[in-house]
C-alpha cells in the first residue's frame, strides 16, 4: 500500500532536525523499519518525514566504563558487540526481525517506537541502560523505564531526539542472555526475557507480556511474576503468557549464569 501524502526533508545536523520537527505532526525517520510499515497502513500520517538517518549518531564506543551506542546504530551493527558480560546485546540483535530489517532498523528508532513486544528494551532494562535525549530546550537523561509510558507511547516531547544509549559495563565475572518465544508469523516476542548476572546481583527484564517492557522484582521469577500485570490476546492468554514469561526468564537466567566468567 502507498502511504498518505507527506513531505520528505533530510536533516543535516541536530539543530536542523529540531527545526524541521517543529512542524505539527512531523515525524523523525531513522531506519524506517517500524515507521514505514505503519505509514503504509496509514496508521501513521506524518505531515513531514524528517530523515535523521545521516546524522553522525551511529556506532558503538567503549568510554569511561560505559558502552555508548549511537541511536542510529543498526541491529546488524549490534550483532558485532562482543564485550564480556554484554552478550545479550548481540544475541538479541541477531534475532530481531530478519536480515533486511537488521540492515536498516536502528536501536534508537526501535526504542522510541515503544512497541510493547519489541525485544531490545528488555535487554536495555536488564543492563541498566540510560538514554541521553536532546531538544531545543536542552538535554536530559532518562532510564528506559522512564521513557516507556505505554504501548507506542513515550515521555519524549515532539522535538526531542535520543542522542546516546549508554550501557554501564558490568563488573568482571558477569554474564547476560536474551531468550524469547516468538509469534511465528510476526517474529515479535510472545514473551522475551533478558538477564544480567553479576557477582552481586541478578536482574531480569521482560517484554511482550505487558503494556511496556519492565524489570522484574528481585528474587525467584515465578514468585515475582505472580505479582506482575500481564495481558492476554487471541494468540496467547494471560495465563499462558505468565507461564511463558517464567520459562523464558528462567532460561535467560540459566544461560547468563553459565556465561559468567567464561
Amino acid at each position, binding site marked *: 500500500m502507498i502511504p498518505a*501524502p507527506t513531505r*520528505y526533508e*533530510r536533516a543535516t545536523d541536530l539543530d536542523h532536525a529540531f527545526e524541521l520537527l517543529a512542524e505539527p505532526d512531523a515525524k523523525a525517520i531513522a531506519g524506517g*523499519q517500524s515507521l*514505514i510499515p505503519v505509514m*503504509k*497502513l496509514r496508521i501513521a500520517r506524518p505531515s513531514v518525514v524528517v530523515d535523521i*538517518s545521516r546524522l553522525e549518531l551511529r556506532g558503538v564506543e567503549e568510554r569511561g566504563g560505559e558502552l555508548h551506542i549511537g541511536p542510529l546504530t543498526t541491529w546488524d551493527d549490534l550483532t558485532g558487540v562482543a564485550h564480556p558480560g554484554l552478550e545479550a546485546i548481540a544475541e538479541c540483535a541477531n534475532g530481531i*526481525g530478519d*536480515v533486511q530489517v537488521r540492515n536498516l532498523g536502528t536501536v534508537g528508532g526501535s526504542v522510541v517506537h515503544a512497541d510493547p513486544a519489541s525485544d531490545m528494551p528488555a535487554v536495555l532494562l536488564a543492563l541498566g541502560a540510560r538514554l541521553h535525549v536532546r531538544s531545543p530546550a536542552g538535554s536530559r537523561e532518562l532510564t528506559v523505564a522512564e521513557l516507556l509510558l505505554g504501548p507506542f507511547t513515550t515521555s519524549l516531547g515532539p522535538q526531542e531526539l535520543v542522542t546516546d544509549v549508554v550501557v554501564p559495563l558490568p563488573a568482571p565475572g558477569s554474564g547476560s542472555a536474551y531468550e524469547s518465544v516468538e509469534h511465528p508469523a510476526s517474529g515479535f516476542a510472545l514473551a522475551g526475557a533478558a538477564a544480567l548476572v553479576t557477582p552481586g546481583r541478578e536482574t531480569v527484564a521482560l517484554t511482550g507480556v505487558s503494556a511496556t517492557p519492565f524489570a522484574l522484582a528481585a528474587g525467584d521469577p515465578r514468585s515475582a511474576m505472580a505479582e506482575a500485570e500481564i495481558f492476554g490476546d487471541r494468540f496467547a492468554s494471560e495465563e499462558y503468557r505468565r507461564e511463558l514469561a517464567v520459562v523464558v526468564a528462567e532460561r535467560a537466567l540459566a544461560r547468563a549464569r553459565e556465561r559468567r566468567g567464561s
Partner: protein
Amino acid sequence: MPDTVTFVVNGESRSLEVEGRTLLVHALRDGLGLTGAHIGCDTSQCGACTVLLDGRAVKSCSVLAQQVDGRDVTTIEGLASDGELHPLQRAFVEHHGLQCGFCTPGVILTAADLLSRDGSPSDDAIRHALRGNLCRCTGYQGIVESIRAAEEEAS
C-alpha cells in the same frame, strides 16, 4: 510536490521525480521500469521486493525513495554481467531453487548479502538469513541447496 532523487542503480546513475511518500519499490518499478523487485505483500513481511542498498539486503517497500539519494542500489536486473548469469542465478536454475519464481529475485539478493559476509555459511545460517523471504512453493529445501551450491562454486 515532486522532488528529484538521484542514485546509482545497477552501476548507472539515474534521476527521477518522486513524491515524499514514494517507496523505493515504486520508484524502481514505475519510475525506472525495473520490475524484478516484486510486490508480494502490503505489510513489509514477504521480502519479494528485496534489493541491495550499498551491498546490504533491504526491503525496497520499506524505504522511501528519497532516502537512497546518492546511494547505490542493485536489483536482480543488475546481477548478471556481460550476459553471464551470476553464480547464484545459475545455481537456482540447476538446483531447483525456484518454482513459480515470484520470490526468487528477493531470495537471490538476500543470499548475495549473506555470501558477501560469510563465505561458508552453515545450513542454519542460510535458513536464518532467509527468515525475511517467504516462498510458498519450494519449502525452502531447494533454495538452501542452491545457495550452498553457489557458495561451493565460489570457494
